[in-house]
């Protein structure tokens, strides 16, 4: 941080000119790039806009020929219908919400504490096995969860956790992505901070809670984002059988597969499911980018 400020100060007279335009850029090229970016941004956004707009369409407009992209008479009927449908389901709707919120909250909190404890010692201390363990974690980044799904089922079965909340919560504690990002971010933390606190007589746990954790807030937020995203979209159809423990996304997808009569509600579902992660991302964008700056894989 301090290094950055210094260089900017030293180059101040030049930096002012440079900030406006880099000297080796052609104006036509810049214009072309802006135009290109605008087009791509439109393509990226289009399906999302379309999802929102079709959630606002009344049913007769969904089956109009030729189909229109924007709704003619926007209504919120689909959303209120969705609540009516969910109210009629066998398990009350609030139960699904509670399940998802509970699992997301406990899973994320546990992940945050356990993974940052591990990341702290890996980043700041050298001990036998530390390098090997970190290599294992980076290897775990290289295969997706599908590879381990079947043996995980067998292990959870042995533990007797099938059909309980734990079957989703505990594996989420060990999510390697969050651990990896946290460790890389903590590498940048000056060791002198830790040592100063130790000389003042704080024990390891105090150092961790009062010195290290407050200093890595951006990394927390990033961990939270990825963990929430992971748990929020969890359908849990493999590990949980009883209806009263199913998650919100699962329940909503049942509505979605309801066919033609529920086409409007299905789009409303899409909007409900996608809006939460996007809002969390918008709120914490700058912090996430700060963490990502240290995410590189060194040899």
């Amino acid at each position, binding site marked *: 941080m301090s290094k950055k400020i210094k260089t900017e100060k030293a180059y101040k007279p030049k930096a002012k000119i440079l900030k406006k335009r880099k000297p080796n850029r052609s104006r036509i090229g810049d214009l072309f790039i802006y135009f290109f970016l605008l087009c791509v941004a439109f393509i990226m956004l289009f399906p999302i806009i379309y999802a929102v707009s*079709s959630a606002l369409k009344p049913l007769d407009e969904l089956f109009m020929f*030729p189909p229109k992209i924007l709704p003619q008479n926007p209504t919120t009927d689909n959303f209120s219908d969705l609540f009516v449908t969910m109210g009629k389901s066998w398990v009350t709707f609030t139960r699904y919400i509670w399940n998802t919120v509970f699992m997301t909250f406990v899973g994320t909190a546990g992940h945050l504490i356990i993974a940052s404890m591990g990341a702290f010692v890996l980043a700041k201390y050298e001990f036998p096995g530390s390098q090997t363990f970190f290599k294992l974690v980076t290897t775990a980044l290289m295969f*997706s969860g599908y590879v381990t799904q079947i043996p995980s089922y067998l*292990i959870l079965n042995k533990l007797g956790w099938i059909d309980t909340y734990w079957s989703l919560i505990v594996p989420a504690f060990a999510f390697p992505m969050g651990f990896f990002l946290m460790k890389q971010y903590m590498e940048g933390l000056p060791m002198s901070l830790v040592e100063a606190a130790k000389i003042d007589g704080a024990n390891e746990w105090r150092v961790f809670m009062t010195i290290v954790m407050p200093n890595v807030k951006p990394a927390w937020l990033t961990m939270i984002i*990825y963990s929430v995203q992971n748990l929020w979209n969890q359908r849990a159809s493999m590990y949980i059988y009883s209806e009263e423990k199913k998650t919100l996304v699962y329940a909503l997808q049942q509505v979605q597969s309801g066919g033609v009569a529920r086409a409007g509600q*299905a789009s409303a579902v*899409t909007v409900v499911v996608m809006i939460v992660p996007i809002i969390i991302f918008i709120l914490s964008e700058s912090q996430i980018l700060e963490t990502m700056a240290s*995410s590189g894989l060194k040899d």
Partner: protein
Amino acid sequence: MREYIRKYFALRKHNFQVAVKKAKRSKMCYAFLAPYAIIFTAFYILPVITSIFFSFTYYNILETPRFIGIDNYMSLILEDDIFLTGVKNTFMIAIITGPLGYIMSFLFAWLINELPRWLRTIAIVVFYAPSIAGNCYVIFSIFFKGDVYGHVNALLIEMGLINTPIMWFIDPKYMLPICMIVILWMSLGAGFLAFVAALQGIDRAQYEAGYVDGIKNRWQELWFITLPNMKPMLLFGAVMTITQSFGVCDVTMALCGYPSTDYAARTIVTHLFDYGFSRFEMGYASAIATVLFLVMILCNKAIQSMLRRVGT
């Protein structure tokens, strides 16, 4: 020779004793790492080992596993046509969407890097949103609907290119290309964010030094300054992309159905689900999982050693 072996073991013993001593002194470290290490081992390392073990057995959960050697692998490769379709589809998807998605992530990160700050913030949200939008991709099934109410069909009919609507997700000809488009749409993920962050972290003084040294255009700047500076992020982005593109299953299952017509949109992971959770042939499913695991790891290693040469 004997002398050499004796020395080797003496050295080993010495190293081991040093390690034990060090380990004793850093008990605290182990205590901190233990909770994570235990759960990580239980749900990431142990599953891989069990999956390799079960892949050599016949196991259907009810009976005890019976050792059958490499029969599972033999029948996977020699008899299971559907698996081969799955492998073909997965590789097609990975080879096309993987590199393209990776290049797209880098390209857009690089292009928006020079936008003004407020515009950049918006651009990041716009580009990143598809990959976190949950199952928003199902909207494409309305878009490419097989009757005249689908937008694409309606458009094509109105332009007079076709007379009858095309069944986009039922005709094997169109399934994979459409799935690839959807996957590409969602491909600006964690790697993209890492690239954006890396580009902003590059020291400005290096660019200024570059101008003095006669770097003429943005391409030279890219190759000689930008890329070498963000090599670690490039590796991270590659890992994310490869893992994602070989694990394709959500999109194909949601759009083309499960199972899809003629198994035309089957991937390795859908095949895994089919045997693991529908037929409960855990041994066979473990063999599929092991193959997938090996493919992902080998691919990652290969790409990493390639990327290390960038900008040198």
